[in-house]
């Protein structure tokens, strides 16, 4: 159903228009320009060029997603420490404007956003000032008394120190992790191309094989990387669906389970994979990739002929 709807040309157009508006509304002028110029060129390059419709569609979708849920939020978050006006993203962001934030879930981002907005409204200094006061208060309490630290005090202290040492974390305690959206194009009726698969592997610093195994296991299908370093997957998948799977991959195999930093190394050790965090040093084992039970979906006669 979804597919049909999205491939309906009229809908497509609407979507495109909408995204145009969003873009204008949400982003500063230069940014809008850069995306509109950049994105089509790139999709054109990497995607299969024969099918204009798909291209457009893909493009439109990408835009929409980018602009609506992620971008505003993420820009807000990022813009926070330096630039108070929420509407205008930082200039740095311009370069990566086409990128998609694959941070794990929307709900959290949204919640955080709210929190941050509050922070935003209240000038930054206030927040920090309070923190410092707290620290002093707490210190003050301890001076001249030999009582033990209460758990709450310790906790507060630790967070105060954290905030002090990492001003960037003040707002969200969340590491930003920006990457390009997957470029997903249908090939014929039965296959799907994930055009920038290799590129995404590089961004994530993961072996293509590892991501490949995960994708195929999750999607319950088969596929391989072709000569143009794009991933050809059997079955029909939409960008959104691939994105969901990618997001789950990132959550499990890229971002640190303790501090959520994406600066991690995945090591194989005695047949188990370990995620070693370069930021906080934590190391934990991650789920092994298993495709598990696979139902027979092909033509049984053909399978019988093969095995017999």
């Amino acid at each position, binding site marked *: 159903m979804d*597919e049909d709807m999205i491939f309906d040309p009229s809908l497509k157009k609407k979507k495109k228009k909408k995204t145009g508006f969003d873009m204008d509304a949400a982003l500063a002028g230069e940014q809008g320009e850069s995306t509109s110029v950049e994105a089509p060129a790139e999709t054109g390059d990497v995607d299969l060029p024969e099918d204009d419709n798909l291209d457009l569609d893909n493009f439109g979708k990408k835009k929409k997603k980018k602009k609506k849920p992620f971008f505003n939020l993420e820009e807000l978050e990022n813009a926070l420490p330096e630039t108070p006006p929420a509407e205008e993203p930082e200039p740095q962001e311009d370069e990566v404007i086409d990128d998609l934030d694959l941070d794990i879930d929307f709900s959290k981002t949204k919640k955080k956003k709210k929190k941050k907005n509050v922070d935003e409204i209240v000038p930054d200094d206030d927040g920090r000032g309070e923190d410092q006061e707290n620290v002093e208060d707490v210190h003050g309490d301890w001076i001249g008394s030999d009582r033990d630290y209460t758990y709450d005090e310790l906790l507060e202290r630790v967070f105060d120190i954290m905030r002090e040492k990492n001003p960037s974390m003040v707002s969200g305690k969340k590491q930003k992790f920006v990457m390009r959206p997957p470029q997903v194009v249908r090939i014929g009726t039965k296959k799907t191309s994930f055009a920038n698969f290799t590129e995404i592997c590089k961004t994530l610093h993961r072996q293509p094989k590892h991501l490949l195994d995960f994708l195929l*296991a*999750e*999607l*319950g*299908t088969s596929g391989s990387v072709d000569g143009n370093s794009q991933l050809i997957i059997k*079955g*029909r*998948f*939409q960008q*959104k*669906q*691939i994105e*969901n*799977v990618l997001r789950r991959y990132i959550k499990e195999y890229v971002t640190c389970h303790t501090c959520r930093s994406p600066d991690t190394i995945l090591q194989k*050790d*005695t*047949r*188990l994979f370990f995620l070693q965090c370069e930021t906080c040093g934590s190391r934990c084992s991650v789920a*092994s990739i298993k495709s*598990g*039970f*696979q*139902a027979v*979906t092909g033509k049984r006669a053909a399978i019988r002929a093969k095995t017999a």
Partner: protein
Amino acid sequence: MSIQNLNTFDPFADAIKSSEDDVQDGLVHVRIQQRNGRKTLTTVQGLSSEYDLKKIVRACKKEFACNGTVVEHPEYGEVLQLQGDQRENICQWLTKSGLVKPEQLKVHGF
């Protein structure tokens, strides 16, 4: 012959073995597979063998108005197959009926 003391000790040997032996890993895996065209198939792997899967599938078929079957797999035991994307339905149903705890459910797919 090997000298035992010189053997390196692999602290994860058990873990690996058990995770391979015990395919169930305590989780119920709900997966989706594409079939020809837009058709899909939902599989539920890892339900305790103490349950009568035949009864479960019968109830599910009625509840979700879809066809379904139980497949015996040499490695994964009895697996539930339902036509269409029943992942939401089956998860809700399994938790509501108390057969599976929510944290035991692992949903795969897109």
